[in-house]
């Protein structure tokens, strides 16, 4: 049995097949994090963030719906991100020039709207570019929230729409802790200029050295094939961080 969909239904299926001999593959929710460090190439990071959350209107299980930005570059990154979002084109999804199409159903649209309203009610700051929405169909403008904390519903629940929550961090440890603070770990991206060339970290050196020695060491959102375990993606973030940070490696003994 193979199922792709919500975590709640996935759990129901897992209960249902208990005690049988059926095999199951569950592909469930994600609340992926993009972590951007202060040495990241901003423009490239912005492109990655945009394709991470706005591809297919965010209706992707491995969407990077949380953005973790190092505090020192928060304003700069947000300016670039907003500028880039303003250039996105909404429209007919069959048109090759369209960046953002419609939401797949009225039901999903109302769910996105509810969650976004809740985000505003809880005190996060909402921003959308000024763009015209087509008159008919289920449309939702690309939206980003700043001033988001980990406790906010929009940072916890899978929205499955073009909505990005921006959180900040100061230290790498804090970034990892925040990225892992989700039951929906599935994908993650790390943006930093350091990393591959200088990474002495364990077990991964071979892989790193066969990557670029210069240019960026940022990783695209990675997809965990297992998908059932929160631990896997949690570790994905941790391990990826080990891969990219010389500082991290010095504290190899802690998690």
């Amino acid at each position, binding site marked *: 049995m193979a199922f792709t969909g919500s*975590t709640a239904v996935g759990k129901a299926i897992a209960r249902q097949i208990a*005690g049988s001999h059926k095999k199951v593959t569950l592909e469930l929710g994600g609340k992926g994090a993009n972590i951007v460090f202060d040495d990241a190439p901003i423009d490239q990071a912005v492109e990655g963030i945009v394709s991470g959350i706005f591809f297919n209107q965010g209706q992707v299980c491995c969407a990077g719906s949380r953005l973790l930005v190092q505090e020192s570059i928060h304003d700069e990154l947000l300016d670039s991100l907003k500028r880039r979002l303003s250039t996105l084109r909404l429209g007919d999804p069959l048109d090759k020039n369209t960046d953002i199409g419609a939401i797949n159903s009225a039901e999903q649209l109302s769910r996105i709207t509810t969650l976004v309203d809740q985000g505003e009610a809880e005190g996060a700051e909402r921003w959308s570019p000024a763009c015209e929405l087509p008159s008919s169909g289920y449309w939702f403008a690309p939206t980003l929230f700043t001033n988001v904390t980990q406790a906010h519903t929009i940072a916890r629940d899978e929205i499955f729409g073009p909505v990005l929550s921006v959180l900040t961090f100061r230290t790498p440890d804090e970034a990892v802790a925040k990225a892992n603070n989700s039951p929906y770990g599935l994908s993650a991206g790390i943006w930093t200029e350091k990393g591959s060339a200088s990474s002495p970290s364990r077990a991964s050196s071979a892989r790193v050295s066969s990557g670029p020695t210069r240019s*960026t060491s*940022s990783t695209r959102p990675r997809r*965990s094939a297992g998908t059932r375990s929160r631990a896997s993606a949690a570790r994905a973030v941790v*391990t990826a961080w080990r891969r990219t940070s010389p500082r991290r490696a010095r504290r190899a003994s*802690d998690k």
Partner: protein
Amino acid sequence: MSAAEKSEQQRLSVFKTYKLYVGGKFPRSESGRVYEVSDSKGKWLANAPQSSRKDARDAVVAARKAFGGWSGATAYNRGQVLYRVAEMLEGRKEQFVREVADAEGLSKSKAAAVVDAAIDRWVWYAGWTDKIAQIVGGGNPVAGPYFNLSSPEPTGVVTVLAPQESSFLGLVSVIAPVIATGNTVIVIASEKSPLPALSLGEVLATSDLPGGVVNVLSGRTAEIAAPLAAHQDVNAIDLTGADEALAKELEIAAADNLKRVLRPQPVDYARTPGIERLTAFLETKTVWHPTGSLGASGSSY
């Protein structure tokens, strides 16, 4: 009567207190309970701790704490540690032969063969630690300027219900593959014959294995397994030691945080195992790493 014989008669017998092995220490059950363990003919052997829910939860905490270090150790290092377990067992073979013979009603020579096989099993899995990644991971061909690599990662904290009948070889056959790949484990020993498992704890404690990587609980399997199957910080459960009804109940409880579940299946522990138990508790992580070359758009993204 010689002097030697006289002192032999006066010596009081020293009974062993079997204790749990949790977080590298040897606690009694916090409940203070014990239950009687007898040999295959019904003769009393010892009292074993009867673990409670609290003991189970403590074991999860210990296993989680140990996970970072153990999963972060190099595969080569884990192999060395597993081999060290085999070395330590070799030195205490006699004790295990006696315990296995009592527990399973085997002759001394048959029990010795079982213990030998169990020691060899540690060696076998020790060899696999730094090879499994080559079998189940690797580079992927992708249509883009990415270096794309999949690698196996340990699932996390794994609860194992050890086989009820094969009290030592079966036990080793279910623990070793789980920790070989970097998981940490809470094992519930055979309810009827927990003594070899509790003694294994003593061996593990002297084998360079960090405390908390393996935690051994004894008691009523159903009582200890239920809170572990429902525990939110346990990532997987091996139901080998559960009967059909218990396995179903535990699998339902395990669905709440979508644990990986290994269902009970008939296994001949005397045979060389495949890699199924190694891969049962691995996740695949795939990393997309930009190569820096330019794509069609003129950018490397």
